């Protein structure tokens, strides 16, 4: 028999262990939150809320309290509340942060705490932005390419060979690094730049012990690795503590430099005739500064029903705009009053250290890059 063990005395009713809600009776003080509200096409504003503060509370707890106490429609994207999913990024007092791990106790509660959406991406509403540009950039990177002639059963590598790659793969795609990066933030769209997140991703592939692809032409001509000027703002905001600049970007810059400014490399590349010619790898999508207008279909149930009726089968999913958003969206509401995370950038620039040492060469598994061998 499989034993289960009830409590020592058998009570008539079970007794729950304590719950998790914020208990106002336990609250020790009050924080004033100034929260950005608005959506494209409407005037934006900052709403202020007095939130009871309990020990250990984070900004996201405060936003949840606000939703449950007066502003149920406050738009916040969040998911795990454990700094694992990367969805609750916002700018807290101008600093790109995960709201789920930004403690209220880190602030002077006599001053209001300002919470705003990530500024680099188009606004959806309140604290939510449209980060889909990032997924399009991701698509332009050549995927993992293991050697065709080594059976997987023979793949062997040491833990120390993958420590760096594993560091890069810790990325939770919160896009705070993309948000803080001034090349993206200032919408210098004439410069195609993939941003720190995707340099980290590319580095994770390039430094994989058995990956065979050569992404250097792509990194140089499409990804724009040269536009990074090593201010290290990205490293500073990374919640996973990935040393983005030192461990990913600088080594990539060096690999690209070796490849393109070393005549032997150059000749070798010509000889091999390698080029990256997948059609969608030739350019990066443009990062919109504002939200794009949606198709303005009034989605009455009747129209919907008609649209999917027998005569006009819908092969593709239909994406209809809601009545409230069917007017073409105007310029989003960013503007003067939003605090400037450039402060973070400047501070970081001032402290940018010397260039890191040259990257460890990747283990030689038939890689055809002689100058690294």
């Amino acid at each position: 028999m499989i034993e289960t063990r009830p409590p020592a005395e058998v009570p008539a009713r079970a007794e729950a262990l304590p719950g998790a809600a914020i208990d106002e009776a336990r609250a020790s003080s009050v924080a004033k939150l100034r929260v950005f509200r608005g959506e494209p096409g409407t005037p934006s504003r900052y709403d202020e809320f007095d939130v009871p503060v309990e020990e250990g509370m984070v900004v996201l707890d405060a936003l949840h309290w606000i939703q449950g106490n007066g502003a149920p429609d406050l738009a916040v994207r969040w998911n795990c509340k454990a700094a694992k999913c990367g969805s609750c990024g916002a700018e807290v007092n101008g600093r790109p942060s995960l709201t789920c791990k930004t403690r209220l106790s880190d602030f002077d509660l006599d001053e209001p705490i300002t919470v705003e959406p990530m500024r680099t991406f188009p606004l959806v509403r309140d604290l939510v932005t449209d980060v889909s540009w990032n997924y399009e950039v991701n698509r332009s990177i050549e995927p993992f390419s293991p050697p065709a002639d080594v059976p997987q059963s023979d793949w062997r590598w040491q833990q120390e060979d993958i420590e760096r790659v594993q560091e890069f793969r810790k990325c939770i795609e919160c896009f705070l690094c993309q948000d803080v990066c001034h090349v993206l933030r200032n919408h210098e769209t004439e410069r195609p730049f993939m941003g720190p997140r995707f340099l980290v991703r590319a580095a994770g592939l390039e430094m994989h012990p058995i990956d065979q692809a050569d992404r250097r032409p792509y990194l140089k001509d499409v990804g724009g690795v040269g536009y990074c000027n090593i201010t290290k703002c990205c490293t500073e905001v990374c919640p996973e503590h990935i040393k983005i600049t030192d461990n990913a970007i600088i080594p990539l810059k060096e690999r690209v430099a070796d490849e393109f400014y070393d005549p032997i490399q150059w000749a070798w590349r010509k000889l091999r005739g390698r080029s990256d010619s997948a059609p969608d790898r030739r350019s990066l999508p443009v990062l919109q500064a504002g939200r794009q207008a949606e198709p303005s279909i009034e989605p009455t149930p009747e129209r919907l029903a008609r649209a999917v009726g027998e005569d006009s089968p819908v092969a593709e999913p239909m994406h209809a705009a809601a009545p409230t958003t069917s007017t073409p969206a105007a310029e989003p509401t960013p503007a003067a009053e939003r605090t400037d995370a450039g402060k973070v950038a400047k501070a970081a620039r001032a402290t940018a250290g010397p260039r890191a040492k040259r990257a460890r060469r990747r283990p030689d598994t038939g890689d055809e890059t002689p100058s690294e061998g």
Partner: protein
Amino acid sequence: MVGGKLLNNARMAELHAREAPDRVRELEAWGAVFDRTRDGRILQRPFGGHSHPRLAHVGDRTGLEMIRTLQDRAVAAGVDVFMECTITRLITGADGVVGAFGYWRTTGGPVVFPAKTVVLATGGIGKAYTVTSNSWEYSGDGHALAYSVGADLIDMEFVQFHPTGMVWPPGVRGLLVTEAVRGEGGILRNKDGERFMSRYLPEDRRGEYASTDEEAARWVTAQSEGRVTDARRPPELSTRDNVSRAIYTEVREGRGSPHGGVFLDISYLPPEHVRRKLPSMYDQFKELADVDITTGPMEVGPTTHYVMGGVRVDAETGASTVPGLYAAGEVAGGMHGANRLGGNSLSDLLVFGQRTGAAAAAAATSVAGWKKAPYLDPVQVRDAGRELSAPLEQGSGEDPYALQRDLQDVMQRLVGIFRVEADLQEATSELSRLKARWPAVGVRGGRTFNPGWNLVFELRNLLVVSEAITRSALQRTESRGAHSRIDHPETDQAGWGGRNSVVRRRPDGSMEVTTTALPEMSDELRLLLGGAH
């Protein structure tokens, strides 16, 4: 099968064991970077209840590695992904499910997907409880969608309470402290410093666990080096149901830690080892609780984590009892029986995700003229659209957040780790009162990314799963795995051993709760299990 207290679908357990290694190798071929052994192979470790170290892993973020690998693979393969699109209704035709209706979170606009086959992969139900390790998305949507079109749900009484969630500070109560902490050697102690787990080991399995601290320590060292050892595993690696009850009992009997948990200690291992193997846990405690796990113990207590129950599926194909509808992952039932072993969900997803996807695709493309989208009944689409608009038109009314708090409170208080008839009866009547409040829910604001409005439909689903859990728990008058009845403490193998609970929707909309015989076990497995049942 033993960990699931023999209530598992034996064929699913078998397929899982046979096919998981291939799925892991497939991930590696797609770029996953697993931790390595000294000779350069994939390093494996055990979790609770495992008799063999079999979990391929990446520190304490194996799930993230899977997500990233599959995401990259999907991107490379050109799979269409519809982000932030919530399905609220399945559309049925004469031959079962023919499509789905939902809305885009960012615009609130409605959307329909005509589809020959639909695979539910919506995860679990943790949001029904106040204390949970789950994200807000775990609102039982797939369970409720399947139920709404008449599919069977099985084993809904089996909700896994993970033994180690954070208990302090209040905002993080319930956040998961991964089993990897115990897998790497974490020791549980009560406030008197007693290593209490050995007192709670089931007598018939005691022989599998270390009898001294020294033996447990030898096991920890060997396994971190990927070495074979004759030392037996530490008592902390008992199954989750058992460890949760032990912690609950320690706390209830007054031997808990200051914030109502117990102590979990890994700080006796070298700090750099702890930081390398448990980096997320190190950061989580450091940043959210001001605790350095390399120098002191964590405070932990049980948290709602996983639902073993789910859509009743065919082991080979993932097909539900309604044509055209499939389910895989946490939303599917059967694989884990009465208690899931740690690590078995991720491999379950891989094995049955692959099988179900392939079967659903084959079924969808097997009929003549399959490229033509199925006809969707306009009345169903219209009604689904009206349901979506109703709370907005209602404007003011019942506050969805208040309803959510009340629902979570009922489930947390009355349908938790230990259950008893009086509590479950009270929960049933409380739930019908909450259900009656639901139609009056009104929300402010528009459709654009409006969490209050989105919550309304999650609540509809949570009310269904909560009722299914409660009624199934009331029906099963025994204790087995994660289901512990104070008034029926023994495991009744003769009466309940061969029976799964079944929940289905009657045509009049009421909930029917019955049982069904467990699927037959193969002779091979019967032989293997031998004395276990």
